[in-house]
């Protein structure tokens, strides 16, 4: 995993308009709050601003991809830099849906987030859904300054689990990577590589019969002792889920497997509820998207 650059990504003239979504944003302290500047974007990403859902200085930005999903060969590349001292929450309008790739090309979702000193990033996207016969490559890279703070989630579903007879683990290629570095040092690298039929078929067993895998990461340089136990208590007993929590230094990792989408969402929210006061200094609240 290469360290993501904080410099905006320049569009390549070779990129086909409409096939390569790109958005560069930068969070800055201005007028006593964080504001998000759109540096440049290409369709189907759309700039629709941001709002202050917590009624404080932290903007919430919905990453809007008007494409509605990833057709074969589509790329969506979101790049954000949080300047020192800023705080911002990024989420998506809906799940990332990856459609079938009958000609063998791969659809890509790339997220590069650069978090400056004393900045707070909350990254809570919806789940990725690889449809039957899709070929998917996801890369999420978060580069943090040692004094920065983070709550981030990642979730992958087995497919359209309630479509027809179900499309569970029917994709043809899935690489899903979520990496975090602190001060250039690798802190966590969650990489699922399921690109052969044997591995894809084994996933249902390896996921304990569940159909959704979700992971939450919480980091702060001053994470209180025992907060991982609070997370453990918060996520315990949610219907249909199997979950665990661990702490490695100042990083808390929560792994969740669930039968239904809402169960994973509930567990992620419970983890956020336990971690957010320590990381962001405020309580978690449901993120409103419409």
């Amino acid at each position, binding site marked *: 995993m290469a360290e993501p650059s904080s410099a905006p990504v320049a569009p390549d003239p070779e990129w086909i308009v409409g096939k390569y979504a790109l958005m560069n944003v930068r969070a800055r302290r201005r007028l006593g709050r964080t504001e998000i500047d759109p540096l440049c974007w290409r369709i189907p990403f759309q700039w629709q601003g941001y709002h202050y859902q917590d009624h404080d200085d932290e903007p919430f930005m919905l990453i809007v991809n008007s494409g509605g999903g990833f057709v074969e060969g589509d790329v969506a590349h979101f790049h954000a830099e949080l300047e020192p001292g800023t705080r911002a929450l990024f989420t998506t309008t809906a799940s990332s849906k990856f459609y079938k790739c009958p000609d063998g090309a791969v659809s890509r979702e790339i997220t590069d987030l650069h978090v400056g000193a004393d900045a707070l990033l909350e990254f809570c996207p919806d789940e990725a859904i690889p449809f039957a016969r899709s070929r998917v490559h996801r890369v999420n890279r978060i580069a943090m300054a040692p004094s920065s703070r983070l709550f981030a989630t990642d979730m992958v579903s087995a497919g359209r689990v309630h479509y027809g007879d179900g499309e569970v683990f029917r994709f043809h290629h899935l690489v899903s990577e979520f990496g975090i570095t602190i001060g250039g040092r690798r802190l966590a690298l969650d*990489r699922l590589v399921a690109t052969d039929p044997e591995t894809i078929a084994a996933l249902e067993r*390896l996921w*304990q019969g569940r159909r959704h895998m979700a992971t939450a990461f919480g980091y702060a340089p001053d994470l209180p002792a025992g907060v991982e136990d609070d997370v453990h208590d918060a996520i315990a007993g949610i219907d249909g889920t199997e979950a*665990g929590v*661990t702490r490695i230094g100042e990083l808390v*990792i929560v792994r969740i*497997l669930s039968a239904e989408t809402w169960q994973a969402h509930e567990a992620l929210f419970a983890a956020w509820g336990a971690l957010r006061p320590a990381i962001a200094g405020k309580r978690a609240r449901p993120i409103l998207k419409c």
Partner: protein
Amino acid sequence: MTTDSAGSPDRLLYLLQVANASFPTGAFNHSYGFETWIDSGALDDAASFEGACRDWLRYAVIPTDGAAAAHAHRHATAGELDALLALDAIVGALKLSRESREASYKTGRALLAAHRDVFSAETLAPLAEAMRDGRCEGHQAVVFGAAAQAQGIGVGDAVLAFLHAGLSNLVSVGARLIPLGQIESQRIVREAWPLLTGGAAEACAMELDALGSATAGLDIASMRHERLHTRLCMS
């Protein structure tokens, strides 16, 4: 089947010794989350344990530590200390539970210490120094690959021995915890030979950016192990 260390009794003897459960790495103390499953009753006989072992090997060890051991061997061959340290960081980052990460570097450090005392491998001194300086943690797969290279073991045989040692240690843990008979345990290892040889070849061919684990259920079991009331293993 790889045979690139064939023809040298010393090399074969080295592999037999360093991959033996009695070589003091502490690996026999680690279940990597399996104790959670055994405690819950999810694994309660030879068949269920064997299936989980094979999944662990195929979807967790071969595409992470197995491949890392191969890369470590090659970096050691080329004298690429910085690449070795970067690889060590990747190996650590791939382990998402505290206990599995600690198990990896604790056994790696123990392996290096024992290796130094038994085989006095001077070529490992830069890696040992980096571990002492805190420039790397010293994960087992990295140390094993580099150490085997220092002894003239071919990369294929090194990875095969690494995988075999890992499976043998885990089976010995299962034999104690479930419990299993000695013959049942040895049969599990024997039945895994094709998986071990095929896995070694696969690991040797794996690019660095393809390293990854698919065993989310075991990640959770390893995390939950931290909170088991009664534990015989460190992980």
